[in-house]
């Protein structure tokens, strides 16, 4: 026995979280500081110009054309600016942290705007005069026209009851579909090229036989108008840069501005020729997608390292670019992402996604289209960029394949163990198999990846739309009380008996299954109606241009125009529900330590006065996350039932429903609407997140956690989320780093989809909670994304502090 066991050979943690300097040079540091220090505000200009466009064109043209004409009107007239030092240009609003509103989706009431302005967290400042504009112009025009209004009017009573009670959420209630990512195409074509493709598609329409031909023509016209819109925007930025250059006194800045102008002469009308132009091209596309509508998960540049590599190689070879300048340009792009807060949200949508983060997510690494290792020089450049910038947006992840060099994995681990949650790690082989399993071709699967949080998709080819979170532990709660919801005080579920009526665990589980099916039907029916509402009333001609095969089909992205069309339903709380069922099975049915009636009494009273029962369910019952088959088999039975109930139901876009297992911040909201649960979770506390074990339930270390998690069949999902928290000492030193990498490889060998790490001292978090002013820069991993600790609600902060720390050394 070594009496002296050293747990920490070399202190590596620089995760003090205290405000630090980031950015490679003065230019970047300045732009980064501006991005971080600007107060988010509401930008009403978009709503005003949209109203003008509708007043001018509505009724004259088809709906898709109307949408495209609005985008053209907006890009022709919105205010634009170029900030000092910028090398990549373009903002969604009128500057950093300026967030346009989207009244066609959610027409904010004046009260909404006051709440947005006044709330402590995720606030958006509203100018005094904008309240007046909203009241006099926006509300009268959009109140009844908004999609939110249409949706809420179209839903059944059952749907509304379940929705308000927190059984499930609805993604499309305030934000458009989207959930998609660009492909290599963006970097290979200009919008004049797309216009040619569109014209060819129009010429090929068959007005003799095809009853849809007119609709297709309207859609294709709309796409062509949308091409004009982005080209106008590019031209305006070019002109602005040139006129600013004429007036610039600093010769360096003059040169920068002329370069920007020259870039805008090429993109977006033509395909990019240089590394710099490729980045600017992407950015214009990003602005157009996110200005046209406010799709969930903003938009992402796809497999950026692979898309950029040919430009990088060429520019470096001809001497026009070196590594340092390439890094500077990437860092400029990073600032651009970070300048865009997510559109302002209200109500339940804010609760399920309480963050400014707009979920742009960049995949680095993985494999190439021919199946070879995809890591290149730009991959390492991107790792350096994310390490240096340490920004929330874009969220950065790495894809790790069997073919990925260890050097790349170790470099990614080195950044990850600094404790701010990025990069997250994804399993390339799992992603490919998930995509193949969902019917994609091998080529499309290899160029796919994950976006948003952890959602798998075929980049550039798929509309994989998240439809809502599904509260599994809450449905178990209803099952125990004959379908009655004690929190909202109403009958919500089926009347299948009370907990005491179930004579065996199997009877209880059967009743649970029936309740899940009941709510799944309600949810899916609602989502189908919502999909149709978007297809009819809110097409996205711009996004359709860049998504294969919308041009070919003459069909909109929101109407099934993409090559693949998936609707995802996200299961939440698998850790909590597993531990609840395990506690019931073990204590009530197997060991008979107490009766079901005693347990439900205890739960109704939040375990007050029931210390013995609380102790048994908390400390002496099998728990998920310990590589214990007793609990893990229950996890499998719940997961498999959920998956089989949802998967394969047809959606309204020619595709089908599938599941993934992720929560964003919804596990906090889903916990709020629940009473105490059978695993000892107290009333209104968060449920477990992703597929991670319930807090403090995993006591056997990280190998046991990942083994429990790997018992779920990840390959039959569209993504799972595992959050692993480490104390700094566990990942310290060469040994800590190597074994972190080995843990990831092992989890991926077992087909795990994703793992991410929070490496932060509990003490740091407590300090940050007490002294937020000293920790403005502290970033933590929340769910499939990172956020500033200070932006999180108190409940979410507490929950992150409580998550089990894996400390064994």
């Amino acid at each position, binding site marked *: *026995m*070594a*009496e*002296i*066991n*050293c*747990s*920490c*050979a*070399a202190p590596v943690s620089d995760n003090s979280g205290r405000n630090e300097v980031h950015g490679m040079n003065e230019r970047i540091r300045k732009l980064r500081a501006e991005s971080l220090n600007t107060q988010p505000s509401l930008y009403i200009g978009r709503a005003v110009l949209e109203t003008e466009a509708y007043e001018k064109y509505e009724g004259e043209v088809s709906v898709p054309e109307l949408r495209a004409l609005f985008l053209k009107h907006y890009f022709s007239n919105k205010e634009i600016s170029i900030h000092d030092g910028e090398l990549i240009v373009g903002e969604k609003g009128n500057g950093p942290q300026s967030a346009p509103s989207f009244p066609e989706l959610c027409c904010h009431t004046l009260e909404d705007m006051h709440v947005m302005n006044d709330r402590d967290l995720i606030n958006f400042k509203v100018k005094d005069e904008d309240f007046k504009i909203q009241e006099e112009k926006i509300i009268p025009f959009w109140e009844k026209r908004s999609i939110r209004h249409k949706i809420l009017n179209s839903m059944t009573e059952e749907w509304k009851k379940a929705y308000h009670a927190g059984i499930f959420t609805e993604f499309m209630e305030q934000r458009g579909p989207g959930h998609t990512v660009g492909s290599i195409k963006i970097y290979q074509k200009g919008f004049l090229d797309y216009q040619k493709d569109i014209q060819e598609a129009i010429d090929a329409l068959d007005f003799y036989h095809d009853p849809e031909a007119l609709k297709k023509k309207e859609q294709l016209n709309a796409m062509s108008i949308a091409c004009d819109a982005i080209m106008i925007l590019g031209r305006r930025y070019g002109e602005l840069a040139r006129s600013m250059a004429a007036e610039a006194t600093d010769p360096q800045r003059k040169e920068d501005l002329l370069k920007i102008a020259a870039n805008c002469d090429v993109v977006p009308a033509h395909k990019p020729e240089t590394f710099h132009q490729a980045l600017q091209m992407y950015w214009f596309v990003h602005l157009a997608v996110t200005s046209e509508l406010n799709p969930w998960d903003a938009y992402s540049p796809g497999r950026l390292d692979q898309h950029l590599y040919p430009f990088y190689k060429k520019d470096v070879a001809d001497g026009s670019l070196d590594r340092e300048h390439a890094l500077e340009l990437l860092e400029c792009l990073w600032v651009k992402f970070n300048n865009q807060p997510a559109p302002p949200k209200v109500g339940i949508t804010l609760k399920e996604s309480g963050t400014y983060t707009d979920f742009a997510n960049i995949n680095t690494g993985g494999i190439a289209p021919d199946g070879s290792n995809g890591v290149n020089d730009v991959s390492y450049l991107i790792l350096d960029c994310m390490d240096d910038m340490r920004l929330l947006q874009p969220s950065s992840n790495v894809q790790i394949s069997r073919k990925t060099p260890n050097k790349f994995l170790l470099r990614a681990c080195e950044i990850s163990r600094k404790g701010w949650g990025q990069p997250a790690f994804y399993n390339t082989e799992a992603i490919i198999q998930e995509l193949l399993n969902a019917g994609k071709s091998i080529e499309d699967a290899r160029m796919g990846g994950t976006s948003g949080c952890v959602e798998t998709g075929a980049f550039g080819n798929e509309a994989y739309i998240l439809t809502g979170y599904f509260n599994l532990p809450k449905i178990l709660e209803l099952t125990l009380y004959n379908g009655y919801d004690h929190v909202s005080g109403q009958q919500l579920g089926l009347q299948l008996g009370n907990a005491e009526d179930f004579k065996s665990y199997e009877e209880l589980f059967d009743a649970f299954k029936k309740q899940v099916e009941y709510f799944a039907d309600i949810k899916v029916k609602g989502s189908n109606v919502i999909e149709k509402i978007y297809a009819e009333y809110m097409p996205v001609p711009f996004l359709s241009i860049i998504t294969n095969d919308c041009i070919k089909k003459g069909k909109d992205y929101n109407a099934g125009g993409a090559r693949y069309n998936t609707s995802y339903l996200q299961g939440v709380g698998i850790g909590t529900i597993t531990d609840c069922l395990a506690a019931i099975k073990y204590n009530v049915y197997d060991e008979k330590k107490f009766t079901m009636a005693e347990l439900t009494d205890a739960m109704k009273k939040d375990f007050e006065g029931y*210390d*013995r029962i*609380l*102790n*048994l369910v*908390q*400390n*002496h019952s099998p728990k998920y996350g310990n*590589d214990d088959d007793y609990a893990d088999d229950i996890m499998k039975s719940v997961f498999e039932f959920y998956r089989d109930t949802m998967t394969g139901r047809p959606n309204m876009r020619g595709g089908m429903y599938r599941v993934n297992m992720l929560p964003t911040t919804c596990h906090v909201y889903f916990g709020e609407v629940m009473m105490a649960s059978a695993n000892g979770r107290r009333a209104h506390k968060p449920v477990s997140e992703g597929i991670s074990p319930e807090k403090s339930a995993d006591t*056997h*270390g*990280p*190998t*046991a956690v990942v*083994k429990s998690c790997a018992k779920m069949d990840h390959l039959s999902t569209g993504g799972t989320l595992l959050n692993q928290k480490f104390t700094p000492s*566990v990942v310290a*030193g060469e*040994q*800590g780093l*190597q*074994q972190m990498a*080995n*843990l990831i*490889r*092992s989890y991926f*060998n*077992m087909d795990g989809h994703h793992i991410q790490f929070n490496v932060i001292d509990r003490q740091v978090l407590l300090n940050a909670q007490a002294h937020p002013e000293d920790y403005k820069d502290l970033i933590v991993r929340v769910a499939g994304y990172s956020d500033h600790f200070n932006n999180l609600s108190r409940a979410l902060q507490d929950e992150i502090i409580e998550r089990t720390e*894996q400390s*064994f*050394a």
Partner: protein
Amino acid sequence: MDKLFVFNIQKYSIHDGDGIRTTIFFKGCPIRCAWCHNPESQRFGPELLWNQEKCTNCGACVEVCPTHAMKWNGSKVIMDRSLCTQCGKCVEACLNNVRELAGKYYTVEELVEEAEKDQMFYEESGGGVTLSGGEVMAQEPFHLIVELTRRLHEKGIPVAIDTSGFAPWERFEALLPFADVFLYDLKAMDPEKHKRLIGAENNLILDNLRKLSQNGAKVYLRMPLVGGLNTDDEDILPVIQLMQQGVRAERVYLLPYHNTGKSKYARLGRLYDINSVFNVPSPERLEEIAELFRKNGFPNVRIGG
């Protein structure tokens, strides 16, 4: 008894040998290092750990204790350890989860099963199982330790034996065909000093070390270093000499003392010897010692586990 007595099975153990390991800590040790940070590993046989700091004196343990080892003294709960039979009833009854029974019997089969659970991690990382303690070489019946080592070896799981070396040579000999590496502690070269620190002389330990080396066993030397006790040049140089005389150690680990074990003494109802002042050696001194090895032709020296 056809079972072995274990006080902890620690997974994702990354400081007791190569790669990701599962370390099985056997309970019971024949020597007593004054600075031991795992006092619950010293005694052969179960022991009750009670974290009184977090105890709320609710009395649930008093109610269930069949031998009245737990009782009220009027204001709080107290324990008479002489009455405790380690039945474990109070552990389950404890409402605050502050009681724990250190030590549990396992069959060889159960230990192999537990170890096998993480085989994919060993294979990915070059890890395996570490048999530690207490003192693994002092466990009874010892043939079960041999059997455990053999079974793991046959399954392709590398086994490290973490030992103080204080055991009959025959026991080492029995493990030679199945163990991959010996993590071998060396606390002091001077026999007198050794006796003072550990309560036993080091002849047997050094003899076993020489024999392991002669038999071609892979050895990692582990030197627990306590500031002021065994960190002077005169403590280190004889180790280097020993190696120059032919004792082969593939690596040398310098393990600086830390005091995380202190609170465990209280939980066992035992006193930490407050008269012994142990110092954490300075990083500079550790580096000097490492340099001493390197300078003398032993580059494979590491600070920390």
